[in-house]
């Protein structure tokens, strides 16, 4: 290949960065994307140009082309005669035809990168003669962070205009340059490097990503914005291989610790139902406080059904300005997700990734697999109130079990139910994607499968995902595109929450008795109660988890289409239509079974599932449509003033329906359809609901001199939930930013250490209508049927009082932020302070008891909640030789305060001027060791071994008045979230460490697993019950005595634990095979990695997991997992 020497000087401003700034945003984006992946130069172009001019200079013609198309040109005006005049009259010619004609007969040549054309000559004559004496040649190869060759990197001899651009293999060569010169390597989004030539004939360079490239672009509502120009509060993260490689089963937990201000909490390790909550900047309202998730412009997408590998970037819009365009739905912040497209991948690419993970519980219950001891514990407990002869279990039964349990595990089982129920989990993730683009179109397609076998037996989850993103330029100024995602999931579970069911009915793992044999494979029987005097309805969890499974599958299709059209420069119009559809089906067809008594050789009377077991079907289906029309205008005037305006009209419509039916008595247990059951007893239910939302959205951005930034937003929303007259809400916001480091009176003083600095402030309102039901504001009669002559008689009652003035709940957010970049942006810092005030929360009004028996309280706009907090994000990027690393520290603190409430507040966890759900606790003195301790304390019916409580108000008795309120401590959410991310690369090796932690939450550890007042006939004993309870012979026992005073189970400081934790969330080690090795296999890159999740947790909490909500019955732990995987790019 012939090496070309390019000599050039950029027109207008000799700075690449600023050229890009002037270029249209779209072409800029294309170029950025193009640059970030390996690319080959291609020169075919099908764009059609139509130009007509007489005697215009070449530069003028090029300008004209730029104005009317996405093309832009770079050339050295010293080298190319652009003042030559020419006539043009082209109609429907391609850019290349035009260029060929323009430069016919000259030595000017061109090359293109996407729509950027570089004009050059082979003429070397411009190189100053004086420097040629010591001239020498240098060549080399430029690669990026991951070892990919980088084409298009600018290589310039410092202080001259002499330079070149790397070729598709990332290679360059310069000849006849002075030996003492310095080469400057620059590339958009990468850090500029300067290297002394000295005597080196070959200079290879690894380009590093710029800490925050000044040109970094983040997704904001209805568009993108340069990070430097942001005035609101937005955190963004690009999803790279390392994040996507984690063996996670949902996207939201993958975001934990990555974005300051976004608190993510995983409540269970249950497959398919891991109950992740996301909160932006604390609990914004007592109504639905979940952030709005917008995927590719489509709101209401379930984030956890996305394929992590399809995601390109995630932005979190936190303040009023940034989320204002989603105003009515955005009071709790917005999570904007952009999926990948083929843009910029001008070489077709195929990516394959695959991983396999094995998981264990982060923490287990030490279940007591010793029934004789469990019965003994039962007797010890009962002894506190019962005489010995009246104890439920006789010593003989216990001794018999103890002895025979050692030789006859069938008739005298000692089951470790935790072992029976819990297994190692596995997660498999397989993805294949392909993408490509050319001048006219680009696409990204992917399929993914995630298959999880949960920690609990028969708790399985699989999720299949397919995506197709496609854009096509049908005219020079018209684009159309489609995004389609289909997903399909399947989850099997016995109980809603794994080890229990929140509905409160059915089995709780806390009811498992070790004297029950799970299953006898020889006879096919499930064990039941056997001990003398035992309740016959003892559960057999194994039978439940084999015979009583719910099976749920769900399909979703999310499609959106757009057409965008730029009739003239700066103006664009766009129409979007999105349709999302879901169908969810659950069925429950339990297998009849009766528990077996192996001692008597007969069935017990307890049938967990009776013979006439039926089938229940539950179908939820629905769709949502959205129509958006958008107009956008951008202009620059008086050179330094940029103005853009956006107007959007949007219409959203929801339709949901539910149908359930059931029949009793399946004709055979293996059949599970409605028709396979007898029609004698059947039920059917069904309903539907609809909702509409209409919105007018506007935004104006104005910036002057790139220093002074202003933004004004408004959104005007109407919701069908409210009555005409109170239907619309208007939510405006405004913000301003000041890039003070651009000021001439500041810059000279700070530029040595402060590379960039910006001050931002914003204030505005956002709405929320989630606190009220779809038809709650309508005067409707409820069905309330009666029965006459043995038949249902239609009855109606008027039960919905309506508050005609009810309207939107509003949230006002003030945000003050500071962005700083130090030491050439090696270190960047973002700090935000906010004050978020939610007012007029939709709450039921206080209704007299004389009415509540008949009426639902009408809702009122009442109740104020304030959230204040700070967030910080620090990033350090550094490198030394081949070693490059970055450290990110992010932290956020949030304090919530309830300022106004609708109803009389009794003393409790919710009170005015306190955090919502704060700690309200008795003060424990400790466990009474002697009667003397008991007598010294306030009389409270205690005996030695009981927890003594403090009589805080000194009235001589322990009542609810003795509880103390902790005004700074929240019970259900931490106040502080923080994380440290460490990334490093060295010669193909990469390492990621994510540490995540919380603070500021305390909660009571009161569960079945540490309850000392144990149930009288069901024995959820753990070994702790054996060793921990206080007794006269165990006076150092950590727990109070068994079946002691009721006060032992009060929410007192005795059980109050600090839920703070620090967790080694993820460690990942990867190795990318050397380029030359994989090239031989015709593969672009191969990376192997190992990854671990939840590897270690440091906490003072005594229960299962400090990240979980505390629930007395829930025992599903989180998963500690180890994964191995590979990413292949072809």
């Amino acid at each position: 290949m012939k090496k070309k020497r390019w000599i050039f000087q950029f027109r207008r401003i000799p700075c690449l960065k600023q050229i890009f700034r002037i270029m249209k945003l779209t072409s800029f984006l294309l170029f950025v994307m193009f640059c970030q992946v390996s690319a080959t130069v291609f020169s075919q172009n099908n764009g059609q140009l139509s130009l007509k001019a007489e005697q215009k200079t070449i530069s003028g013609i090029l300008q004209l082309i730029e104005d009317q198309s996405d093309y832009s040109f770079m050339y050295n005006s010293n080298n190319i005669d652009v003042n030559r005049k020419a006539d043009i009259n082209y109609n429907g010619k391609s850019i290349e035809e035009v260029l060929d004609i323009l430069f016919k007969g000259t030595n000017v040549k061109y090359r293109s990168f996407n729509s950027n054309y570089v004009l050059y000559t082979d003429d070397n004559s411009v190189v100053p003669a004086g420097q040629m004496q010591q001239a020498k040649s240098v060549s080399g190869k430029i690669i990026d962070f991951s070892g990919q060759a980088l084409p298009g990197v600018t290589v310039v001899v410092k202080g001259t205009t002499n330079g070149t651009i790397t070729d598709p293999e990332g290679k360059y060569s310069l000849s006849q340059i002075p030996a003492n010169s310095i080469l400057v390597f620059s590339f958009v989004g990468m850090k500029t490097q300067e290297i002394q030539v000295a005597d080196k004939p070959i200079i290879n360079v690894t380009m590093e990503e710029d800490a925050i490239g000044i040109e970094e672009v983040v997704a904001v509502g209805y568009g993108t914005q340069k990070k430097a120009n942001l005035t609101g509060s937005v955190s963004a993260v690009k999803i790279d291989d390392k994040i996507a490689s984690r063996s996670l089963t949902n996207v939201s937990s993958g975001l934990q610790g990555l974005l300051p201000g976004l608190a993510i909490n995983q409540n269970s390790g249950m497959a398919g139902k891991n109950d992740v909550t996301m909160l932006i900047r604390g609990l914004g309202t007592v109504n639905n406080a979940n952030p709005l998730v917008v995927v590719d412009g489509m709101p209401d997408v379930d984030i956890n059904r996305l394929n992590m590998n399809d995601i390109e970037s995630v932005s979190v819009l936190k303040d009023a300005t940034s989320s204002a365009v989603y105003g009515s739905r955005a009071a709790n912040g917005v999570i904007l997700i952009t999926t990948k497209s083929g843009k910029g991948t001008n070489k077709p690419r195929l990516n394959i990734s695959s991983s396999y993970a094995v998981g264990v519980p982060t923490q287990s219950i030490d279940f007591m697999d010793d029934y004789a001891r469990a019965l003994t514990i039962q007797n010890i407990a009962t002894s506190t109130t019962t005489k010995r002869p009246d104890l439920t279990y006789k010593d003989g039964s216990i001794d018999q079990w103890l002895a025979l349990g050692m030789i006859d595990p069938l008739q005298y089982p000692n089951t470790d139910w935790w072992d029976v129920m819990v297994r190692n989990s596995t997660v498999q993730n397989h993805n294949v994607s392909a993408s490509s683009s050319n001048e006219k179109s680009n696409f990204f397609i992917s399929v993914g499968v995630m298959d999880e076998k949960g920690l609990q037996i028969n708790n399985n989850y699989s999720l299949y995902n397919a995506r197709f993103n496609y854009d096509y330029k049908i005219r020079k100024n018209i684009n159309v595109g489609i995004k389609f995602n289909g997903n399909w999931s399947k989850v099997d579970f016995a109980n809603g929450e794994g080890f229990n069911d929140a509905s409160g009915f059915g089995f709780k793992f806390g009811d498992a008795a070790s004297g029950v044999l799970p299953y006898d494979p020889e006879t096919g029987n499930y064990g039941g109660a056997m001990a003398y005097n035992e309740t016959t309805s003892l559960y057999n969890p194994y039978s439940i988890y084999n015979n009583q499974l719910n099976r749920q599958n769900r399909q979703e299709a999310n499609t959106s289409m757009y057409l965008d059209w730029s009739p003239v420069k700066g103006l664009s119009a766009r129409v979007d239509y999105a349709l999302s559809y879901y169908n969810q089906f659950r069925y429950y067809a339990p297998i009849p079974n009766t528990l077996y008594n192996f001692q008597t050789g007969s069935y017990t009377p307890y049938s967990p599932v009776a013979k006439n077991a039926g089938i229940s079907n539950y179908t939820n289906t629905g769709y949502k449509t959205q129509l958006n029309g958008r107009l956008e205008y951008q202009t620059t005037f008086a050179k330094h003033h940029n103005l853009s305006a956006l107007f959007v009209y949007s219409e959203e419509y929801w339709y949901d329906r539910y149908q359930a039916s059931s029949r009793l008595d399946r004709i055979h247990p293996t059949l599970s359809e409605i028709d396979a059951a007898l029609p004698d007893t059947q039920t059917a239910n069904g309903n539907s609901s609809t909702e509409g939302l209409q919105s007018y959205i506007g935004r104006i951005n104005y910036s002057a001199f790139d220093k002074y930034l202003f933004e004004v937003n408004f959104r005007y929303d109407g919701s069908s939930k409210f009555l005409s007259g109170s239907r619309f809400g208007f939510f405006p916001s405004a913000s301003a930013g000041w890039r003070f480091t651009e000021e001439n009176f500041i810059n000279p003083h700070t530029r040595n250490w402060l590379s960039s600095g910006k001050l931002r402030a914003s204030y505005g309102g956002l709405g929320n209508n989630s606190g009220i039901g779809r038809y709650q504001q309508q005067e409707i009669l409820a069905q309330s049927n009666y029965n006459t002559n043995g038949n249902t008689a239609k009855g109606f009652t008027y039960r919905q009082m309506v508050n005609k003035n009810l309207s939107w709940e509003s949230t006002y957010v003030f945000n003050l932020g500071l962005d700083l970049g130090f030491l050439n942006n090696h270190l960047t810092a973002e700090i935000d302070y906010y004050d978020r005030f939610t007012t007029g929360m939709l709450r039921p009004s206080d209704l007299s008891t004389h009415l509540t028996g008949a009426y639902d309280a009408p809702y009122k706009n009442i109740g104020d909640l304030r959230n204040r907090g700070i967030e910080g994000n620090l990033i350090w990027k550094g490198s030394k030789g081949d070693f490059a690393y970055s450290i990110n520290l992010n932290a956020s603190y949030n304090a919530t305060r309830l300022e106004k409430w609708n109803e009389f507040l009794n003393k409790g966890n919710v009170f005015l001027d306190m955090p919502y759900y704060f700690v309200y606790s008795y003060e424990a003195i400790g466990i009474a060791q002697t009667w003397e301790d008991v007598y010294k304390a306030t009389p409270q019916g205690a005996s030695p071994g009981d927890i003594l409580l403090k009589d805080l108000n000194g009235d001589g008795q322990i009542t609810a008045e003795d509880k103390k309120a902790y005004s700074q401590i929240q019970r259900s959410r931490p106040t502080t979230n923080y994380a440290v991310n460490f990334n490093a690369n060295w010669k193909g090796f990469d390492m990621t460490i994510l540490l995540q932690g919380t603070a500021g939450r305390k909660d009571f550890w009161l569960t079945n697993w540490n309850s000392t007042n144990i149930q009288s006939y069901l024995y959820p004993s753990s070994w702790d019950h054996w060793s921990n309870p206080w007794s006269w012979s165990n006076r150092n026992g950590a727990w109070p005595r068994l079946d002691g005073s009721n006060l032992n189970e009060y929410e007192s400081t005795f059980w109050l634990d600090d839920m703070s934790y620090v967790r080694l969330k993820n460690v990942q080690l990867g190795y990318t095979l050397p380029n030359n090795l994989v090239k031989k296999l015709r593969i672009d890159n191969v990376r192997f990695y190992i990854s671990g999740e939840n590897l270690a947790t440091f906490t003072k909490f005594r229960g299962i997991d400090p990240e979980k909500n505390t629930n007395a019955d829930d025992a599903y732990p989180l998963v500690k997992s180890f994964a191995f995987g590979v990413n292949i790019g072809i």
Partner: protein
Amino acid sequence: MVSKNVVIMKKIYSKILFAFVICELLLSAASCTKDILEQEPTVNLGASSFWKTEDDATYALMGAYSAVRGLFDRDYYFDGQGEFFRTRSSSNSTTSGNINLGGAYRGGSYAPAPGNGSGFDAMYQFLYGGVNRTNYVIENVNKMLLVARPASVANLEAIIGEARLLRGMVYFRLISLWGDVPYFSKIINENSEISDIARMPITQIKDSIMADFTYAFEKLPVKATQIGRASKPAALAFRGKFQLYWACWNKNGWPELDTFTSNATAATEAYKAAAADFKAVIENYGLNLFRNGEPGDWGTMGNAEVLPNYYYMFIPSTGNPNTEGEMIMVFTHGGTGSGQSEELMRDFAGRSHEGSQLWVMPRFEIANRYQSTVTGDFCTPLIPMSSNTAGRAALNSAVNPQSYANRDYRMKATIMWDYEMSKGLSGLAETGWRPFIYKTWAAAVNINGNIYTSYDITSSAATTGIVFRKFLRNYAGLARSEGDYNWPVMRLADVYLMYAEASNEAYGPQADAIALVNKIRHRGNLPALAASKTASKDVFFSAIEQERIIELFGEGQRPFDLRRWRAIERVFGAPYSNGIVRQDTNGGNQVFYFKNASELGYQQCYIFKIPQAERERNPNLTQNKPWM
């Protein structure tokens, strides 16, 4: 140049214009679908389309029935406040906030314990729910009446009559539990109309209740148009019952209610008026006791193929048709999937009966109240004994089935002692006869060479040694919470006994009253009352009380009787006494009630506590004296 520019500009403007046209189209498309903000409910009826036809009046009335049914259909929980009935819990067996699933009864204190007038906030709240529901019907149908065609008047007035009967029943219950209560008889549209309402003295409320019952009596049909709805005799019986209570309060006093002064004259008048109403019910409508009051067949000890008539009176298939008219007023229930089923099975039976939970059970001591069919008087008290061979054989042993022979037939129909059988039910199918054997749960037992599986219940639940047969279903096909029984709120037997009581108080023992009591005794195959039992007002009263205990057992009458008679001290002992002890058939499980109870504790049984939460909202709402 200029013209060229103009051309270009024109072109640009036309493009801009086009863009705007597109946007305009979008917007106008939007305005076509302006309805997007008008979404109509899909399952509930919009109020605007209601109150158009006569049928709408009926639908609204049915809604009121549905709301009032739940205020009475678990009255058996109240029996737990008496001495012969145990209510284990009203909170585990009911569904909070659900009027159809016992929501009104939730949280109450249903034990014979001092201060058991607390915890009835849900009952209070739902009683007022009933007030609002009936007011809604009455006010709206009254409006319809103004413009109604003459042909519709009778029907509309009957609908108002039914609603007023229901409202009368609700206020009657309110004042008998709480004394003075807020009274309103119109539709409330705003909380503010009622937020500062004060209590109205019962002397005032009395007139309104009487007016409601009287209107109902005048307008209702002689025979209910449908089972489940009210009739003229029902209205009359309730008016009589209300006057009987009024007479009792005036005779016996209600010292806990400080606005009320008793008045002996008023008492006598009310007794007379009550007796007159009851007499009219008994004589004017051709009503007769179920199966003519015949006792039916006792069957054989330990078997249940045949049971006395009293048992069948409550079974829907046999008692429902109500041809004789014993069931003067019932609240009906639907079965599977109707959303308005009763849960009698769940409450009255054990695990062996569709996995039921035995939330209520008779106390062993009730057995001694069933009299001998031979002597017509009480038998030698049963002796609690261990369930061993000796105990099974001993004379008068509580665990010897033979001790239960030759007693009131209603005992066989009401309770089960050891070795009594009932039909096991599981998975909506019969599972064969299940003998009840205390503390031998779900065991294989050999009875006369046949192997049975015994009755099953968690042993911590069954604590008395006997369980109910009354209200226990003898047919399969319904789950434990899908019952279709009709709950009796007014029975002819009750009217007989109330007549006897009222006339006895007004005039002393009357021949017709004695005859009616004997008619009821005949149902238990008991001989007529001995002359000594009707010799005086007092002894006849005792005979009436005895019949009320037996005949109305488990129907929620006993604690109301004890309160109106001011008999709590008589039954449970004076303040600071030893109270009473209850035990099981084995002599174990002893519990003491009212032991060392203070006067205040008794006072708090005679009048209930006004919900404190409402008092905090509304300072005008005063509290009853014992609860201050």
